């Protein structure tokens, strides 16, 4: 493998000294005691005797032992930075830390085995992650072992742009400091470009740097910015912050294109709150969510009402909503030339709903336009939501980037106003619209440094790469939410010769932390005289200043991972904007309704592309389209029909003079008519492309990003989409999208549920005949368990976090685009997604919709509307597909149901799959001969077959087939070989370790003591696992719940997995 040279058996090998090379030629590196033996032999003559025999025997033993010593498996032995209290081989250690992938900064809990981080879950102390974690965050553990990481400080090679010369830290420090001082002397400007930083210590490090180099500016760039909200709040309330949204308190949520369950701001936190507000047990209220959007988003699929909207016209509808509410509140309405109403009286309906829940409702918008956001603020003011569902006092720090500043920086840089530029954890050459300008600007500077961990697009332009640590190797702190501090601690010493960015800055700023003056007693830490200690001490000093004095206190915050200050009392801010004044700006934002919109979005897995090169992220299917390994243009059926475009075709997408050629098409049910969507974050180069390092996955849509009212704008009106010749098959994990009217997902409405808890689930029970009595997993005396799982379809958003979590926990192989195309993905848990098209009010939907589309600013009668419809249908055939934009969606997690009467077990000839005495359907991998009969006989189709040898196979090298990547493998789970069947084991390894733990602690294993990987990762808490034999366990209660049912119960498979009916909070009339 290409990265072999990364592992050395010692310095000598690394430096390849003469001695070493010479020694390598010998069989044994060390000299062997040959000479003595033979010398003695000579003196004795050749007559060998007993003593000779003993000597030779001794010699051979020595030789063998020396030979044994010679090959020591240094490869994955990594010493500890701070020696943990106990390291028992085979026992996992857990450390609380903070996720460093995006600036949301979720608190995480890192599982390490023998010093290797192998799994990341949420830290339940953290108010951000609330114990769960998004798919991307979980997958980030693999980038720690990414062979594409730079092995040390580097400099792009002069000759070839793709090569780097690894330098010495001392060398790079000397050169950089020299240049910095020159710039400082010449009074030149230096810029430190970062994404939003809310780490107190990092900020203070930057300040120290500024004090040394006085002309330094700190520029914040967020790849996907929330500048609009920040500026709107600055204008409205004088607070340039993103507020904290309390979804758990919001009884009505109206969102204009904000995917708050998917990628909008702090979605994990919001999902948790959303789920809480939608709990039906024992509540006489349940939140109602209304979504207006163009792309089908996760929030849209989970909304009670989803109204297709043309995002470029969002202003119309936002104002319409404002006016509707203003009317109720008796305030002046906004004078708009265009006002509007969506199909089915959506705006009116939402207005009523909101007004009823005045004070405990929430209106949000995904738009990054400050003006629109200001109107949203106005709406929330009308609804008196501030202080209840919106908290400006305990605000969020997760996004602080102001686009104007970054734009200014860009122009200055390209004008050569900067002599020095430092990129920290940001990649503007890739993820900003003005990448060319920046690339050119960098060349103009005297000094350009990047802290990138891999050779990303920006780093390639810079002079130096002061390679940063992976966040799992770093110290750090952060303040994602005002007053709640998160801590980051290394869970492994740096795998490569890398150094933390803060450390570098301190070194360059010449800051020296005086160790003698440290406020701590723990000399042991100081005695390890490592460089990293400097920032560590720096941070501790800072925290001592903030009141966490002494090891005791500091260890506690490290243990918890968080340090929460008492939250401030919430106040209702004064709204200080005359909305009339911004009407003109609003009007400007409204796009032409007959021109196609392009909505750029982040998808759930790849997000802004930071982890584009991570196989788990790539193979995770998009919750809506089930597409993996590519980004694509999602088109509405009606448009596709009119252009003769079908799935499998490709299009050329043109905005201005930017064009993406041959973009694959996915006809997305639920995509608003006259809109198209493309996911950002693709088109980055990396080994995953399979054809060498520089083949990209998908195409980069950042060049399309435009500016509107001075902020980054992801909604482009007037995109040209032309069918191109090329064909491209997207790798989808699900290709049939209708549920065929089968009783797999049970639904009801809240009103019905309120009257009768069994609503939707009260079908007459099927007559289940069996020839023998069903097994009870109870024996007298022994503490017998019956493991089972319940999945609340009402909480499940379909985000797919469990899919990645399961893959990591159980070493599920990544099979790549080609195999997914062949429908051979290996995920043990999948999320079935079914569409239904709804024909609200049983009206002729196309016409209704057309009316809403064809709004002329005047009240249009049915008649005029109808003839307009006829006109339309005359000129394009696809009118009958207009209603494809109205879609109802259900998500259903599906994994092995662990049937009590399992069809798979009876058909295996060699007993490779049998039932455990604790109710688990278990696979014996090394007994399996691969007849595949079990998979055919599985009604749930959850069994996965190893068609090829996916591990140790260069054809399937997705980063953890190489020596470094293998470190992420979970040692508790067998890596399956070719030709065997595999499937969900209900994380039997966790059950076993929990049993051992209980035994050690001399106590009975409780029904809630075991948590499966999918359960741990679920931000909505939709998955519950436990022992139904324990009457006090949560699962036992859920199994008795009126909503619980079994999928395909009529087959009498007696599954150990139950689902809970989905409850939609919709009016009967429109349901």
């Amino acid at each position, binding site marked *: 493998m290409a990265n072999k040279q990364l592992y050395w058996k010692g310095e000598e090998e690394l430096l390849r000294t003469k001695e070493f090379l010479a020694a390598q030629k010998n069989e044994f590196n060390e000299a062997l005691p040959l000479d003595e033996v033979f010398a003695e032999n000579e003196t004795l003559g050749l007559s060998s005797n007993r003593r000779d025999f003993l000597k030779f025997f001794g010699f051979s033993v020595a030789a063998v032992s020396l030979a044994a010593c010679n090959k020591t498996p240094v490869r994955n032995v990594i010493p500890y930075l701070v020696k943990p209290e106990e390291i028992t081989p085979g026992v996992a250690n857990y450390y609380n830390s903070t996720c460093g992938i995006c600036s949301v900064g979720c608190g995480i809990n890192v599982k390490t085995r023998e010093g290797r981080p192998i799994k990341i879950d949420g830290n339940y102390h953290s108010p951000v992650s609330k114990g769960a974690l998004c798919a991307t965050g979980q997958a980030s553990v693999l980038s720690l072992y990414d062979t594409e990481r730079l092995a040390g400080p580097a400099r792009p090679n002069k000759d070839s742009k793709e090569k780097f010369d690894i330098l010495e830290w001392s060398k790079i420090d000397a050169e950089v400091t020299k240049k910095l001082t020159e710039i400082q002397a010449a009074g030149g400007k230096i810029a430190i470009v970062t994404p939003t930083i809310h780490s107190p210590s990092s900020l203070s490090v930057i300040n120290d740097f500024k004090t040394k180099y006085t002309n330094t500016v700190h520029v914040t760039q967020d790849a996907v910015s929330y500048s609009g909200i920040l500026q709107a709040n600055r204008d409205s309330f004088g607070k340039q912050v993103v507020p904290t949204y309390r979804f758990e308190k919001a009884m009505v949520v109206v969102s204009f294109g904000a995917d708050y369950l998917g990628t909008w701001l702090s979605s994990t936190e919001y999902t948790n709150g959303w789920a809480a507000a939608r709990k039906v047990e024992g509540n006489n209220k349940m939140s109602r969510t209304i979504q207006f959007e163009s792309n089908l988003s996760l929030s849209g699929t989970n909304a009670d009402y989803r109204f297709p909207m043309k995002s470029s016209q969002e202003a119309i509808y936002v104002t319409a909503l404002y006016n509707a509410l203003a009317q109720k509140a008796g305030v002046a309405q906004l004078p708009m030339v265009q006002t509007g109403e969506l199909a089915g009286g959506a705006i009116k309906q939402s207005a009523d709903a909101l007004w009823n829940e005045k004070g405990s409702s929430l209106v949000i918008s995904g738009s990054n336009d400050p003006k629109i956001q200001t109107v949203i603020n106005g709406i929330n003011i009308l609804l008196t939501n501030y202080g209840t569902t919106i908290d400006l006092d305990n605000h969020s720090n997760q996004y602080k980037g102001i686009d104007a500043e970054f734009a200014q920086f860009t122009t200055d840089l390209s004008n050569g106003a900067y002599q020095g530029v430092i990129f920290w954890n940001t990649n503007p050459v890739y993820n900003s619209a003005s990448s060319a300008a920046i690339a050119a600007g960098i060349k103009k500077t005297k000094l350009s440094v990047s802290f990138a961990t891999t050779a990303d697009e920006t780093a390639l332009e810079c002079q130096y790469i002061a390679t940063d640590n992976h966040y799992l190797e770093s110290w750090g702190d952060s303040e994602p939410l005002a007053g709640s501090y998160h801590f980051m601690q290394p869970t492994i010493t740096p795998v490569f010769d890398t150094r933390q960015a803060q450390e570098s800055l301190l070194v360059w700023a010449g800051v020296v932390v005086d160790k003698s003056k440290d406020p701590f007693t723990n000399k042991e830490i100081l005695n390890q005289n490592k460089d990293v200690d400097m920032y560590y001490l720096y941070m501790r000093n800072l925290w001592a200043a903030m009141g966490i004095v002494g090891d005791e206190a500091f260890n506690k915050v490290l243990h918890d991972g968080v340090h929460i200050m008492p939250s401030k009392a919430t106040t209702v801010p004064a709204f200080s904007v005359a909305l009339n004044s911004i009407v003109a700006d609003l009007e400007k934002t409204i796009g032409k309704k007959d021109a196609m919109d392009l909505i750029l979005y982040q998808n759930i897995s790849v997000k802004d592309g930071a982890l584009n090169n991570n196989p788990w992220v790539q193979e995770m299917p998009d919750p809506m389209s089930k597409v993996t390994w590519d980004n694509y243009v999602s088109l509405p059926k009606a448009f596709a029909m009119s252009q003769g475009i079908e799935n499998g075709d490709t299009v050329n997408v043109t905005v201005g003079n930017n064009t993406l050629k041959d973009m694959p098409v996915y006809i997305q049910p639920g995509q608003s008519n006259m809109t198209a969507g493309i996911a950002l974050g693709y088109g980055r180069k990396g080994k995953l492309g399979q054809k060498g390092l520089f083949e990209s996955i998908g195409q980069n849509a950042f060049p399309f990003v435009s500016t509107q009212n001075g902020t980054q704008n992801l909604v482009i009106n007037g995109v040209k989409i032309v069918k191109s010749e090329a064909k491209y098959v997207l790798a989808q994990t699900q290709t049939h999208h209708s549920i065929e009217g089968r009783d797999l997902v049970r639904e009801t409405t809240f009103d019905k549920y309120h009257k009768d808890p069994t609503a939707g689930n009260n079908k007459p029970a099927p007559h289940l005949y069996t020839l023998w009595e069903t097994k009870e997993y109870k024996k007298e005396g022994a503490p017998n368990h019956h493991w089972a799982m319940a999945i609340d379809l009402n909480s499940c958003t379909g985000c797919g976090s469990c899919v990645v979590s399961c893959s990591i926990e159980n070493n599920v192989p990544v099979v790549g685009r080609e195999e997914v195309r062949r429908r051979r*993905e290996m995920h043990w848990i999948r999320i079935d997604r079914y569409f239904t098209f709804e024909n609200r009010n049983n009206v002729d939907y196309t016409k209704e919709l057309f009316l809403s589309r064809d709004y002329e600013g005047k009240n249009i009668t049915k008649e005029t509307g109808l003839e307009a419809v006829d006109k339309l249908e005359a000129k394009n055939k696809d009118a009958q597909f207009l209603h494809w934009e109205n879609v109802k969606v259900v998500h259903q997690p599906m994994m092995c149901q662990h049937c009590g009467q399992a069809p798979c077990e009876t058909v295996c000839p060699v007993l490779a799959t049998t039932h455990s005495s604790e109710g688990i359907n278990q696979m014996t991998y090394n007994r399996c*001969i691969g007849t*595949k009969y079990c998979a055919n006989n599985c009604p749930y189709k959850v069994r996965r077959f190893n068609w090829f040898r996916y591990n140790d196979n260069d054809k399937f090298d997705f980063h953890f087939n190489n020596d470094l990547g293998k470190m992420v493998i979970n040692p508790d789970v067998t890596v399956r070989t070719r*030709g065997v069947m595999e499937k969900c084991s209900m994380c039997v390894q966790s059950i076993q370790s929990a049993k051992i733990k209980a035994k050690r602690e001399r106590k009975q294993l409780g029904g809630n003591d075991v948590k499966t990987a999918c359960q741990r990762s679920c931000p909505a808490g939709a998955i519950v696992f436990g022992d139904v034999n324990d009457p006090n366990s949560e699962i036992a209660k859920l199994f008795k719940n009126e909503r619980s049912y079994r999928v395909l119960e009529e087959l009498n498979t007696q599954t150990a997995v139950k689902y809970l009916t989905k409850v939609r909070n919709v009016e009967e009339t429109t349901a």
Partner: protein
Amino acid sequence: MIHDSIIRPQLVTGDKTLHDVTTEICRPIENKPTTSWKVGFTLAAIFLGILALTLTITMLFGIGTWGLNKTVQWGWDITNFVFWVGIGHAGTLISAILLLFRQKWRMSINRSAEAMTIFAVMCAAIFPLFHMGRLWVGMYWALPLPNAFGSLWLNFHSPLLWDVFAISTYFSVSLVFWYLGLIPDIATVRDRATTAGRKFWYNFFSMGWTGSVRTWNRYEVVSLVLAGISTPLVLSVHTIVSMDFATSVVPGWHTTIFPPYFVAGAIFSGFGMVLTLLVIARKVMNYQDFITIGHLEAMCKVVMLTGTMVGLAYITEFFVAAYSGVEYEQYAFINRATGPYWWAYWSMMTCNLIAPQVFWFKWARTTPWFIFMLSIVVNVGMWFERFVIIVTSLHREYLPSGWVMYSPTIVEIGIFLGTFGLFFTCFFLFSKFLPVINMSEVKSILKNRE
């Protein structure tokens, strides 16, 4: 001793003497191979080569080289397995059941039919073996042997295990039956042998047969007993094969009608294949006098009967599905007829139900070239039947999320064609080195006695 034979048409025409029979049937063995034999054999050998190649590929890289996926995990492999096993039924059936029914017309064809059985079962066995993910362990883990798992035995609930026993039993019993039948004829060849090699080998296999009446006496008893047990055996084998599907929960498989329906299908396809072979054989080796139009006609009648039975089963399936009221069952069958694989279903219907009906006409039953064409149609139709049952049931099951399409890869196709290579290679060797027609039995029904 043939007292009933005056009225009936002769089973062997051309007023042969006993000696004529011997000489004519031994001719291919004693003479140099004809060019047509050489050509045919080379062709078959080439396909055998393809089999070797494709199986090697499968073993080297894995079952992934086939077109299977997470939903359709049995495709052409099991289709071909059932197809070949089905063909393998005619032989034993002809020799056993027709023997019990004292159907004398069987005598001139049962030898080749039995040979066909054995070769077909050999071809069939390839598929269940190589469709296993881990053939190298599966080969013996599927047998009740002590093992290092402590020791983990077998699952006698599994139809696949029943298959292991059924197929191996069927194969070995057919082999014994066939060999016993061969012994007297081998002895005949031995006694006519001119070359040392032939002397040695035929003597070796004739086991010192002299044709003593005492031996004949026991011989008759033994073949009667073997026929007696082979009859339920032959029925049981395809019944068990059908249970691979019938005992599952897959809609379209989970049907009680399968055993009789599969057996009928097996006889149908078996006779189809026998016809194909004999029409060629009688021409190439000019055995027209032994394998007369009468024989062909009799077989055509069987084909027509069984074809109609199978067709009836198809229709019954639909009725049962509709009557069951199980939506999944109902969908499975609607999907067969109208789904993406409709073409497979309708070609099955045409070939198996409609086509054989032409045998109502005597001309159709008595025109060799036409019979030949139709026998091919029957084979194709029966292959499609298995494809329809396996693939169209699997590709759309209970959960629509898992619905997929399946298409074979070049490797799968290669293996299928390769098995034909194996089959015909064996058959050509057989026709060269062993008497294709049972001489002793034919002699016993000669009519040239006053």
